[in-house]
């Protein structure tokens, strides 16, 4: 196991809203090693984005409340950092790409203005002051690296003038222009067509390789993580239900939820699609007691309704949070 860059321990996050207390994250455990690529897969509303936002400390508080757990970045707890430390961390170490580039780019500034800010400021943060020419050259270089054909012209464009794929390339250029160590990619290609998705993921893959950065890739698409990550975590209703090496996990899913999910993915082999998983994601105000998946699970036992299962070792390096694979002692 390489040194841990990010280590999330037993994270609990809730939201206090008018209807009551939403207990969204329920003991998330997740780690990313130095130079490692880790996937986090789950369906809508399972808490993937809440996890990313907790790492970046950009959750609006209130209504959000972190009710327990730690997020260690190189051994230091992000949740206990002061404002300045956190800013420095975001400036040098963490970087993120979100799903909708139109929301992450400022509509009233040109791409050039936004990129120059990032490149210039991150240099100042490192104690260097770059000349305007150098900043300009670095920006254009960053855009070129993402496969942008006409970088000089793009610098003068506004986000609205670009296609979705181009906008996402700009976001990638922004994210990777700062030599950050950990890239949080939250559904970076969900809004894009497959051919564009393929191009962007391939570029992202190469750029991350060149920088030897680590990636936490959040997505709902099993296919995307299969190519891009080494380890995979499956999330359901606010906790990790299965974790293991990506190929092992996809070839041989253990948790009933993962099995149901894999059976629902339409395959090119064309053997038909399963009926999916009955029921739907639980209400977070009154989540089911015990294992949060038990109301939808075909294998449920008495213990599932009262106690929430820890991650049991199933195979080497492959763990599942399910009482089918072990008992509490």
């Amino acid at each position, binding site marked *: 196991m390489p040194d841990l860059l990010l280590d999330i321990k037993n994270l609990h996050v809730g939201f206090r809203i008018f209807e009551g207390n939403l207990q969204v994250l329920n003991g998330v455990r997740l780690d990313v090693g130095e130079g490692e690529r880790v996937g986090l897969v789950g369906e809508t509303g399972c808490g993937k984005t809440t996890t990313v936002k907790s790492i970046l400390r950009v959750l609006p508080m209130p209504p959000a409340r972190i009710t327990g757990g730690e997020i260690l970045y190189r051994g230091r707890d992000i949740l206990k950092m002061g404002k300045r430390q956190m800013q420095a961390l975001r400036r040098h170490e963490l970087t993120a790409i979100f799903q909708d580039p139109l929301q992450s780019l400022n509509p009233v500034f040109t791409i050039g203005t936004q990129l120059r800010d990032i490149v210039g400021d991150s240099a100042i943060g490192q104690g260097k002051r770059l000349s305007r020419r150098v900043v300009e050259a670095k920006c254009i270089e960053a855009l070129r690296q993402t496969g942008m054909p006409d970088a000089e012209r793009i610098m003068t464009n506004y986000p609205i003038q670009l296609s979705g794929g181009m906008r996402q390339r700009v976001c990638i250029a922004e994210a990777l222009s700062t030599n950050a160590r950990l890239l949080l990619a939250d559904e970076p290609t969900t809004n894009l067509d497959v051919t564009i998705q393929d*191009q962007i993921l391939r570029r992202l893959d190469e750029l991350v390789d060149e920088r030897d950065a680590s990636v936490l890739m959040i997505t709902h698409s099993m296919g995307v993580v299969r190519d891009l990550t080494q380890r995979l975590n499956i999330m359901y209703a606010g906790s990790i239900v299965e974790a293991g090496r990506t190929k092992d996990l996809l*070839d041989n899913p253990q948790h009933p939820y993962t099995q149901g999910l894999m059976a629902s993915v339409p395959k090119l082999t064309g053997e038909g699609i399963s009926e999916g998983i009955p029921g739907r994601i639980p209400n977070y105000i009154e989540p089911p007691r015990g294992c949060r998946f038990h109301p939808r699970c075909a294998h449920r036992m008495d213990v599932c309704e009262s106690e929430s299962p820890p991650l049991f070792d199933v195979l080497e390096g492959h763990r599942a949070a399910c009482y089918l694979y072990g008992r509490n002692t």
Partner: protein
Amino acid sequence: MSATPILTVENLVKHFPTKRGLVRAVDDISFQVGKRDTLGLVGESGSGKTTTAQCIVGIYPPTSGVISFEGSLIGVKFNRREKRLKQQIRIVFQDPGSSLNPKRTIKQILSVPLKVHGIGQPRDRLGIMSRLLEMVGLPPSEYLYKHPQSIGGGEKQMVAIARALATNPGFVVLDEPTSALDVSVQGKIINLLMRLGDELDLTYLFITHDLSLMRNVASRVAIMYLGKLCEIARTDEFFRSPKHPYTRMLLSSIPVVTEEEELLKPKKIVSQGEIPSPVDIPPGCSFHLRCPEALPICSEIDPEMQSLGEERVVRCHLYGDSPCNR
């Protein structure tokens, strides 16, 4: 064609004049859908899939071309279309969140097509609506008086399907019915649609951008690019030997989850470029700028649709008796 065509589209053109120029959303396409078939219409965003569907349903009148349904011409304005046809041809939209009125109960939503088409006596309609909900697997006592926002995305789509089936149609256009849903819910909707298709003898035009999904539901696949069709083939043949370079690029870009699937994908074709703007379509074959196999002729002459054996057409200079192969 496995059966007699129920819907025939010939040389359909739909242009939208805008300030920036003429948008050629659909540019001369022809295809047929046989009775009980499921034709999968696949393409990237901006390729004209939805406009095609909307011309068929009658939301837009075509600029030119012929659409005929069971022998009668339907390429006219929606308000001049016969009511019988509106009853026969129905549509399910992509996002059930915006296609169902949030202020109305499901009972009110389902009653509209019944009233408009005069189906059943007013006193029988509650029973009809209950049967419709049962048909899509929603218990009527629980759902009739709910509002769309209080049910899940999959359930909303089931209500939208029930509404489409309320008039007892023969032809249903499914415009990306599951792309707003999670995969575990998608399975349920797809299986429901396939079961209803068998029970009610429905013909589907299934629009999607997901080729893996098409593999499992469509009997024939048509690929669309920039307002034109590239290739039409029976599903099994299509996936066994994709012909058009664009089709191969699409197939090789799909992220897959198993090793067996990986083997089915064509040899890696590097995806390049983006779909050009439909205002400014490149001359010749509209795909030539992105095509890894482009020939000099491709930038000059737009290839014709040509038949490659039974039920299979391709529009590419690499095949058949194109000028460059003579």
